[in-house]
């Protein structure tokens, strides 16, 4: 094995060697630089291999042939090797990336780059305090040099600010070191730790100075104004080093210091870290400059890792896994993003729309985004999972909440950024990335995936990158070049195959959900056949969602459940984002979903009490004072997905703006994931009381309110898809209500709603989508009279609304019938009022839907439109058949489930004998109803045909009009504001209170951030004062408390 001293020697030696080369031999110099960096990276890699695979013991390297602590010694273990590799690889890739700049600036710049990488190695390796200082100074100075790589005018100013603050840091650090030396009699870190420096006279103050100085290198809020200016001004390749590698090295230095400081200093580290994490993510919200925002994000991530280091007292052996997971995610992603930012000309976030049309770059971007947000299957996800579990296990709930809050903020601005890329204004210029720059970014992206695989393998859970559904979904990334129809067939085949594969293993409940999610998904995908071209991005996203769903229903433990949940959230987010104007809605969807997911995570963690291997079954055994809280967290988490009232504001836009075949997926299928979660929750946790309040009663109220408000809002929509979307809120409210009733029939009803809602909402979304496709608008009042032109769509919608409104003889009635039987035994009656009110209201919007689109006056411009495309109609008619079958023989699907529910609620099962279904209270015979209604209807129809045989068909304006004739179809079609009187009467209920609440909240956050960031005035002296204030305040705190 090559001694690690060569890493330092090679870096330095090459740097010196460069001076010997003629200034003109730039290519040679550049080659030498790359070779040196590659060599050092190889050494680090070799050691990493030795430690990780061969299990070698850490090595000590002595210098000067003298044992420590009398000479400087270095130490190389697994973390050191990994960090070294990271630093050197980042340096190498940045060097590749900087090819042109370095060649332009010459060997001096290359030498500086080499030295900064070497210095990071020194920081990581050294065990001597003063030596640490020297390497820090090297980094400071080389940073001062590398900032100048930037073409940015303001880079000089930023560098100078940095130097000024560095001076302060240096002063404190030196004073601290010398007094620490005086107190401990050694400069060796391990020696100081052994002498327990902080216990010695004068030692704690000295340590405070050292600690604060090194922590300041992590740019903690608020002493970090200079760092942000550097990020904003520096060359992105340098920022990559600065953010990914330097920060990692500094963190490792802090880690070493904490060894000296001992447990007493851990809370300090935690506090500084968490404040940085939350505050910098908050401050990042109003940023418009990409690099500055990335800077804030870097500061935040580093703060998070510092928090993790500060929690090592409870994290124990997992510290490495957790901190490493977050650190490597951060490093790879941030470096990658900075490298990408070098490809984008504009500095505004909106300018990133230039990435559009570059699938590779978008793939890389998405990878980085997911890594930063801690989404599966990347290391941050596993790390966060462990971290939250351990925190919850030790009752550090405030910290847990702050971490999740900060992470949510971060995800918020990151995904907003992604929205700009995908949906921002059409880029003015197309970027043609240089090949070397592109490959650097791609290497980072691939490294991200590799790390994901690695962390998955290291985690105690199953490696997500080895799960078949996820791989299947990711496989579509490789197939993007195929035409859409081939991919579509593959996708359908995959879904069906997975269903067949899993079929023997499903219990009835899972079977229902699996049928809807997998087979149902395949059915909706049939509508995708109508799409032309390659549809880049659609299939990976859709299949990611389906993969998540497939994994969700079979998840046995909380980890798999949560991972599946995150996957389906992300997949659906990408799907929703594909819509034309869906950017803001997709954003609020992902923010709400991630917020909900975090609550679920917190809930699971709380329930598991630190045991990260937590089977869902074990929810039953959660102990009492905790159980209701777990219940609340999980329930709210799941309700973000079912869009219960209060958490619903993402849904209308997200569903309405999605593409034609995506709307039914996200409405018909995705919402069911939330219901599935609620099923799981209630099945295992049952009724819970919090402060004497029965939580299921609260859920009932929420369900009832959702049903009412959802329906009420639906009737005032002008946009057909929005109407359907609001109706989904209402329908999910019904289902939630049924679940919360906690009796046999309530659950059966909820399941019936699951099935029904899937069928008719998918069908209606497809119909409306097809119509919108033909008419070019979704505004219902602009349509009208389409019945003659689109009769098939009309039939589908007609059947759909009859089914949905619960009018016999179609299947919706079954749901209503079960509902009435269920409420007979419900112990709590008041929410029924809302449900009873919302039932007929559903009728209002359904009528409006069919009337304003199909009936009334045909508009001129629609005279020539054709029926919806075949592939959109086909699934609709399959749904019609399903509805009919389900209406006639509901037992086909429900019977087994009924028996299954009896496990939980033995009372109140239905009797399915013969044609009549009987409950304890009533009976219902679907076939008889169908026959009776059919016979009456046909008889009367025949009679009318007989007496009315001479009826003459007239045209649309042949109507009585008070002796006049209509003016134009637009003025004759009564459609806009259809329920105006209703608005007068009950419109006050539709006040956008919830929207207002969330908007106020986000406004508040943004305003707070906007005000707070003025703290960073841009004046170097003020920054220095910030730093001093930081020191003094911390000093006073550490003395006073």
């Amino acid at each position, binding site marked *: 094995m090559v001694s690690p001293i060569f890493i330092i020697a090679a870096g330095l030696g090459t740097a010196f060697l460069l001076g010997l080369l003629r200034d003109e031999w730039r290519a040679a110099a550049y080659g030498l630089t790359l070779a040196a960096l590659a060599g050092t990276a190889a050494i680090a890699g070799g050691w990493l291999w030795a430690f990780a695979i061969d299990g070698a013991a850490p090595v000590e390297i002595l210098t000067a042939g003298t044992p420590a602590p009398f000479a400087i010694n270095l130490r190389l273990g697994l973390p050191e090797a990994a960090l070294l590799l990271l630093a050197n690889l980042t340096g190498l890739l940045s060097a590749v990336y900087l090819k042109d700049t370095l060649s332009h600036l010459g060997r001096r710049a290359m030498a500086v780059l080499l030295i900064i990488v070497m210095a990071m190695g020194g920081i990581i390796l050294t065990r001597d305090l003063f030596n640490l200082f020297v390497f820090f100074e090297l980094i400071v100075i080389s940073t001062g040099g590398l900032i100048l790589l930037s073409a940015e005018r303001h880079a000089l100013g930023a560098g100078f600010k940095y130097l000024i603050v560095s001076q302060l840091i240096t002063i404190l650090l030196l004073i601290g070191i010398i007094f620490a030396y005086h107190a401990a009699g050694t400069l060796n870190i391990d020696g100081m730790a052994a002498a327990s420096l902080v216990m010695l006279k004068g030692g704690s103050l000295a340590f405070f100075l050292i600690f604060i100085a090194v922590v300041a290198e992590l740019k903690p809020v608020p002493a970090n104004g200079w760092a942000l200016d550097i990020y904003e001004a520096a060359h992105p390749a340098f920022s990559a080093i600065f953010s990914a590698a330097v920060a990692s090295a500094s963190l490792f230095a802090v880690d070493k210091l904490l060894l000296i400081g001992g447990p007493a200093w851990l809370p300090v580290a935690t506090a500084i870290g968490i404040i940085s994490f939350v505050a910098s993510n908050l401050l990042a919200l109003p940023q418009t400059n990409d690099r500055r925002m990335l800077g804030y994000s870097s500061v935040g991530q580093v703060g998070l890792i510092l928090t993790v280091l500060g929690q090592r007292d409870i994290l124990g052996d997992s510290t490495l896994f957790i901190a490493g997971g977050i650190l490597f995610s951060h490093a790879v992603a941030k470096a990658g993003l900075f490298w990408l930012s070098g490809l984008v000309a504009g500095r505004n976030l909106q300018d990133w729309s230039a990435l559009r049309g570059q699938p590779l770059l978008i793939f890389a971007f998405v990878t980085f985004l997911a890594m930063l947000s801690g989404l599966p299957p990347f290391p941050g996800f596993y790390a966060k999972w462990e971290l939250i579990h351990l925190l919850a296990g030790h009752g550090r709930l405030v910290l847990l909440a702050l971490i999740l809050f900060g992470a949510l903020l971060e995800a918020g601005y990151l995904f907003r950024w992604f929205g700009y890329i995908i949906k921002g204004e059409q880029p003015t210029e197309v970027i043609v990335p240089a090949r070397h720059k592109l490959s650097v970014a791609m290497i980072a992206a691939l490294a991200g995936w590799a790390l994901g695989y690695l962390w998955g393998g290291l985690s105690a859970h199953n490696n997500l990158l080895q799960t078949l559904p996820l791989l299947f979904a990711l496989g579509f990334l490789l197939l993007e070049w195929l035409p859409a129809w081939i991919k579509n067939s593959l996708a359908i085949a995959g879904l069906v195959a997975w269903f067949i594969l899993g079929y023997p293993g499903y219990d009835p409940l899972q079977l229902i959900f699996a049928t809807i999610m997998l087979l149902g998904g395949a059915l909706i995908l049939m509508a995708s056949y109508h799409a032309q071209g390659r549809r880049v991005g659609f299939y990976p996203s859709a299949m990611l969602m389906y993969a998540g769903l497939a994994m969700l229903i079979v998840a046995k433990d909380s980890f798999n459940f949560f991972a599946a949940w995150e996957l389906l959230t992300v997949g659906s987010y990408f799907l929703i984002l594909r819509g034309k104007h869906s950017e803001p809605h997709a954003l609020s969807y992902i923010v709400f979903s991630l917020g909900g997911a975090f609550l679920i995570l917190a809930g699971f963690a709380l329930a598991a009490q630190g045991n990260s291997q937590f089977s869902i079954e074990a929810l039953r055994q959660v102990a009492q004072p905790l159980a209701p809280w777990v219940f609340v967290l999980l329930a709210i988490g799941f309700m973000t997905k079912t869009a219960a009232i209060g958490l619903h504001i993402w849904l209308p836009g997200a569903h309405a703006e999605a593409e034609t075949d995506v709307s039914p997926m996200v409405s018909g299928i995705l919402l069911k994931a939330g219901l599935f979660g609620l099923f799981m929750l209630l099945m295992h946790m049952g009724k819970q009381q919090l402060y004497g309040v029965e939580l299921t009663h609260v859920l009932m109220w929420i369900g009832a309110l959702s049903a009412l408000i959802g329906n009420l809002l639906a009737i005032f929509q002008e946009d057909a898809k929005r109407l359907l979307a609001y109706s989904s809120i209402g329908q999910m409210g019904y289902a939630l209500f049924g679940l919360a009733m906690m009796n046999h029939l309530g659950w059966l009803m909820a399941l019936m709603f699951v099935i029904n809602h899937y069928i008719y909402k998918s069908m209606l979304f497809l119909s409306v989508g097809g119509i919108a496709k033909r008419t070019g608008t979704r505004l219902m009042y602009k349509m009208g009279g389409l019945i003659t032109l689109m009769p098939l769509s009309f039939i589908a919608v007609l059947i759909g609304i009859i089914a949905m409104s619960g009018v016999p003889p179609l299947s919706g009635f079954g749901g209503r019938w079960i509902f009435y039987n269920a409420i007979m035994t419900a112990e709590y009656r008041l929410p029924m009022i809302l449900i009873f009110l919302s039932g007929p209201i559903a009728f209002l919007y359904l*009528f409006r839907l069919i009337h304003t689109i199909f009936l009334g006056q045909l508009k001129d411009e629609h005279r020539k439109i054709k029926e919806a495309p075949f592939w959109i109609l086909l699934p609709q008619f399959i749904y019609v058949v399903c509805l009919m079958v389900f209406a006639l023989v509901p037992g086909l699907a429900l019977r087994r489930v009924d028996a299954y529910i009896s496990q939980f609620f033995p009372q109140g099962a239905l009797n399915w004998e013969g044609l009549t279904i009987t409950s304890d209270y009533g009976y219902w015979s679907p076939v008889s109803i169908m026959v009776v209604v059919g016979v009456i209807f046909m008889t009367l129809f025949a009679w009318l045909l007989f007496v009315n045989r001479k009826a003459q068909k007239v045209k649309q304006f042949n109507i009585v009009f008070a002796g006049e004739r209509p003016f134009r179809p637009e003025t004759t079609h009564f459609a806009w504001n259809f329920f105006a009187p209703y608005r007068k009467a009950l419109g006050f209920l539709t006040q956008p209170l919830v929207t207002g609440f969330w908007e106020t909240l986000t406004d508040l956050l943004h305003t707070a951030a906007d005000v707070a960031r003025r703290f960073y005035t841009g004046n170097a002296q003020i920054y220095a004062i910030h730093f001093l204030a930081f020191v003094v305040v911390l000093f006073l705190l550490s003395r006073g408390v």
Partner: protein
Amino acid sequence: MHFEWMMIPYSLLTLFIVVNYGLLLTALMQKIGARVGRRYGIPIWQNYIDLVKNYGLRSSITHGVMFYLGPVFRLSGGVGLLLFVPTIYGSVMFSNLSFAGDLILALYFVFFGALGMALGAGESGHPHAAIGVSRGLSQMTAAELPFALAVFAVALQYQTLSITEIVAAQQGAVLHWTLFTNPFAVAAAMLSFLGSMMRPPFDLVLAPQEIPIGPPTEYHSSYLALMQTNRVIFPIAKIVIYMNLFFGGAASWPVFFLKVFLIYLFSLFVGVAFPRFRVEQSIRWFLVWALPLGIVAIVLV
């Protein structure tokens, strides 16, 4: 209960009786209304004549398939509703086709006709039709609410959803009627009843002075005849539900006639005394006056 072929003729007999009774009853009601206004009113057989005339008109037009089917839906709704509800308590045959479903079926089947009619009216392309439907649906949401609560209260009270069993539970004495055992539910339901009878002050749908005459603006000849037929069946079918749930049902046809007459009369009494509400007034009225009664009813049960 099971289906027997004999049920068909008996059901048709019920239908026949109800149609005739309804034709006479509605005329009678109009006559009573006229007497309040000191008029003679229409002849008692006038409805028959109007019906024949409308069936006998020679020409008719159609606006499209849904327009054509609307009245069919409407009448199917009325006939179906009538047949799904047992008319005479204690008579298996006059229980009609109630083996197909219980109270819930009846409650929801009410909408069948309304939906079809609304669709038919919609296809006529006449704005007044759409406005009428909009008004009707708006009012219905509020008017149905107290009724639903009352039904829920009654079902809870008797612990069954079967109409026959509810009627059975009220037998024995007048004081066993829900009217006396659960007055709040009945009060709520009767207020709701006003809303569904298309009489002032709740005749928002037709409102001849405002939107002449709402949904049926374009209907005429045999369409209108079908709807007229429904106009005599449907209120009675509805009253039968009320009678069964709240007023002890009817054990024989004379009792049936009497009770239906009296319940119908209630809406007439209110109707002749009040002018028409605006839509939002009507909605608020139901929510403010009828809804609390319904809530009291379900809370007290």
